[in-house]
């Protein structure tokens, strides 16, 4: 029920009553004036027509009927009856009724139409859209308020004028096209540029409809126009933005994928497709798992599922993908599941080719492994610590040497290390730190303590350095020098033993010391004896004094004997030991002992020992003594020789003695040589060619050799110099190894 219809009923009733009153009044008036039926009918007609302007059809129709009734009763003779005598009056009544009804109807219709059209116009005015109606000559027939607002022209200004008068410019091609389209199709939808009264240019969306009459001829055009300038601007901005993003998507050298929850590729950027050797079309619609290598597909699937399980959270992973041509590449992907504007869930993936980086990483790892292997297998112990001195790494040797596991060592603080593992005390530690501070390198000897508590000597070399990121590190290389220390110790002991024996058997020293010792009791004896002599000579016979003096003489004599006995015992102690000896070793030991001296005197010593020299039995120290004596003599003999020519050769070869195997060692020099007659005299005690010599060395040496069952002799070296040789019987043939002898 329309609004009009809703109000109809009370209105109808109202207009009926109004009409009724009006009619009654008019009837009374006409009656009084004595009008006849025809005149009254016309008056009634006027009233009805007037009423029809406000009333609706039904009440007026009713009034019309009442009017007819009234006419027939009051005005058509016979009066006061509904009978109509005159035939002309019937025509009048009939005509009145028809005219009233028809007129009423017509007026009603036209008022209604007018009202409707007013309503519509009001509605049209309400709408925000601009509505313009023009006829086929482009004359403006209707101009709503929206159009007034939009263009700035009021309806009064525009109605009846031509459309083009208000466009402020020539008709554009678009406008002409629009018109043509409208005529052709009866409707149009266009976006056109229009100009307002103020000269502002607007983009309007024009919807037009062609109104045709019954014959189909166009009669008017209804246009609805919308200002879409803003919308257009927004659309433009959006489009530009979209273009930008599209450019990013399309041309960025990064691979972008968009996946649906099932893992199907919804979209991929050209770069992404290209990197994998596909076109975009080939990838869209396929499962993304297809581009991963077989073994990584499960992982890829799992990662995508993780993304979907945690929407909005970005997750990363590294996997290998497969190109179309079968080659593989390592990628790092970051993905996030999200909801789009359409409320769909998608997974966005950014994918980066890291094959190069992976390769570099692999190489680095391989290189690091190589270095680690190197360090680990080094024979020295290796420690690395940070700037606070805490151990951060150790190699295998460090662990094995100390008896700890790597876990036990790594992480140990400096204080712990020093107190538990070394014998360095606080003083030393401070000194080390000071040295470290000044020079970055420190070398020191110390002792380390194993887990089982045993100590061993070490040489440590420490160095500090700074890494690229500015951190300070220290490395310590520690060498177990137990062997070296032992060798040094052995050497020292050998030297001491040799020195001792040298001292003892070189009678020079012995003589000097025991000569002094003997001197004391001898002097005392002399004094006492002289004293007695003097006293007796004076005739003094102080018996006690004399007795004391003589007693002293006796005791001093005993003291002297004791001294001599001691010396004899000392000499006896060096009775030859009997051990198996390799002369090669003896030679080596002597060379070690003489090394400093030969270097100082610029003497080159060469050895030439046969490989198959048999073992001899003897006293190592005594034989060293002999050889050392010969070597020193040889060096002395070459004192006058030019430094570059000083050469000494020690030869050893197999020899025979009385048909049994023996070894001969020859010491050859290129010194002043021997005279023939000297060759034998040399070995006599106290014979010496040296200004400060005792002349006992060779004598003793010869006696040592003889005690070993060998012999010692000298010869001239053809050319220059001399050769001193000694021979020793091989094991099993020496008098020394005939059963265990007495200890003395």
């Amino acid at each position, binding site marked *: 029920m329309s609004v009009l219809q809703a109000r109809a009923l009370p209105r109808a009733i109202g207009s009926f009553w109004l009409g009724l009153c009006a009619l009654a009044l008019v009837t009374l008036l006409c009656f009084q004036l004595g009008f006849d039926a025809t005149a009254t009918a016309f008056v009634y007609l006027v009233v009805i027509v007037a009423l029809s302007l406000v009333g609706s059809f039904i009440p007026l129709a009713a009034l019309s009927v009442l009017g007819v009734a009234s006419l027939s009763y009051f005005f058509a003779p016979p009066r006061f009856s509904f009978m109509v005598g005159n035939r002309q009056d019937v025509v009048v009544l009939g005509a009145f009724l028809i005219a009233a009804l028809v007129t009423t109807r017509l007026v009603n219709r036209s008022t209604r139409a007018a009202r409707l059209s007013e309503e519509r116009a009001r509605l049209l005015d309400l709408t925000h859209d601009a509505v313009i109606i023009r006829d086929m000559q482009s004359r403006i027939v209707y101009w709503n308020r929206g159009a007034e607002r939009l263009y700035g022209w009021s309806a009064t200004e525009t109605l009846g004028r031509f459309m083009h008068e208000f466009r402020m410019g020539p008709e554009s091609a678009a406008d002409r096209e629009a018109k043509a389209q409208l005529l052709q199709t009866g409707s149009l939808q266009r976006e056109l540029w229009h100009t307002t009264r103020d000269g502002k240019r607007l983009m309007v969306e024009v919807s037009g409809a062609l109104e045709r009459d019954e014959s189909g001829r166009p009669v008017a055009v209804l246009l609805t126009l919308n200002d879409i300038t803003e919308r257009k601007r927004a659309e433009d901005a959006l489009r530009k933005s979209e273009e930008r993003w599209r450019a990013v998507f399309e041309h960025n050298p990064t691979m972008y994928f968009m996946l649906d929850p099932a893992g199907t590729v919804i979209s991929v950027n050209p770069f992404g497709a290209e990197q994998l050797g596909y076109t975009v079309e080939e990838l869209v619609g396929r499962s993304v798992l297809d581009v991963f290598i077989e073994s990584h597909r499960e992982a890829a699937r799992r990662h995508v599922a993780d993304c979907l399980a945690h929407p909005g959270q970005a997750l990363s992973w590294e996997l290998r993908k497969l190109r179309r041509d079968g080659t593989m590449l390592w990628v790092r992907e970051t993905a996030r599941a999200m909801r789009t504007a359409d409320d769909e869930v998608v997974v966005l993936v950014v994918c980066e080719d890291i094959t190069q980086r992976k390769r570099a990483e692999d190489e680095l790892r391989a290189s690091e492994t190589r270095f680690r292997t190197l360090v680990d297998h080094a024979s020295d112990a290796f420690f690395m610590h940070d700037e606070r001195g805490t151990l951060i790494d150790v190699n295998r040797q460090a662990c094995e040497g100390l008896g700890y596991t790597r876990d036990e060592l790594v992480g140990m603080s400096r204080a712990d290390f020093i107190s538990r593992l070394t014998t360095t005390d606080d003083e030393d530690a401070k000194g080390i730190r000071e040295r470290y501070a000044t020079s970055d390198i420190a070398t020191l000897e110390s002792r380390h303590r194993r887990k089982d508590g045993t100590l061993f000597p070490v040489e440590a070399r420490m160095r500090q350095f700074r890494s690229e990121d500015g951190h300070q590190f220290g490395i310590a290389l520690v060498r177990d020098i137990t062997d070296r220390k032992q060798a040094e110790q052995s050497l020292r002991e050998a030297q001491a033993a040799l020195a001792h024996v040298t001292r003892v058997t070189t009678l020079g020293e012995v003589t000097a010391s025991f000569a002094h010792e003997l001197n004391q*009791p001898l*002097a005392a004896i002399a004094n*006492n004896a002289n004293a007695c002599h003097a006293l007796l000579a004076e005739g003094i016979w*102080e018996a006690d004094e004399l007795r004391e003096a003589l007693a002293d003489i006796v005791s*001093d004599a005993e003291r002297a004997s004791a001294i001599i006995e001691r010396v004899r015992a000392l000499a006896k102690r060096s009775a030859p030991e009997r051990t198996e000896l390799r002369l090669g070793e003896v030679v080596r030991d002597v060379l070690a002992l003489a090394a400093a001296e030969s270097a100082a005197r610029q003497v080159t010593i060469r050895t030439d020992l046969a490989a198959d020299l048999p073992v001899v039995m003897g006293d190592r120290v005594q034989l060293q003594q002999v050889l050392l004596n010969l070597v020193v003599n040889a060096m002395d003999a070459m004192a006058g020789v030019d430094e570059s020519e000083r050469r000494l050769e020690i030869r050893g070869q197999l020899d025979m003695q009385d048909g049994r195997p023996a070894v001969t060692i020859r010491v050859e020099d290129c010194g002043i040589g021997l005279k023939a007659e000297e060759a034998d005299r040399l070995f006599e005690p106290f014979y010496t060619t040296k200004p400060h010599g005792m002349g006992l060395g060779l004598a003793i040496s010869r006696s040592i050799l003889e005690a070993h069952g060998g012999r010692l002799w000298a010869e001239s070296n053809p050319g220059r110099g001399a050769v001193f040789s000694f021979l020793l019987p091989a094991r099993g043939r020496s008098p020394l190894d005939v059963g265990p002898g007495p200890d003395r």
Partner: protein
Amino acid sequence: MSQAGPKNEGREMAEPHGALVAVVDDDTSVRLSTCRLIRSFGHRCESFGSGEEFFASGFAEQIACLVLDVRMPDMDGLEVQRRLFERGARIPILFVTGRASEQEEARARAAGAAAFLRKPVSQVSLREALDHALSASGRVQGDRDGE
């Protein structure tokens, strides 16, 4: 100096009235026997085992002559000589030694040693050296020549 006179058999030794001589030597028998010998010359003699003992004894001012071993532990002969010199004592010193280097002899003599004798010392050398030293210092009581 001994009392001159004919040889008397069994006669007791005369009262020693000679100068006081000190003997310093770390070897006991040497020290004692030297002292005995010096006493047989007619002098008085005291012996000491070390330089410290000698200085501690207080005899240092009284002696007319010093017989001194060079090589001794702790304080050697040269040191004793130096100390005496520092104290202002101008006692003649006879060095007697079993072994000494030329340098030590040179130093001793440079420091004013009256004599430098090597063990074993003949009694003649000792007597002569003593006489010489004592006469030089003017502490001799009696005179041989004067007899």
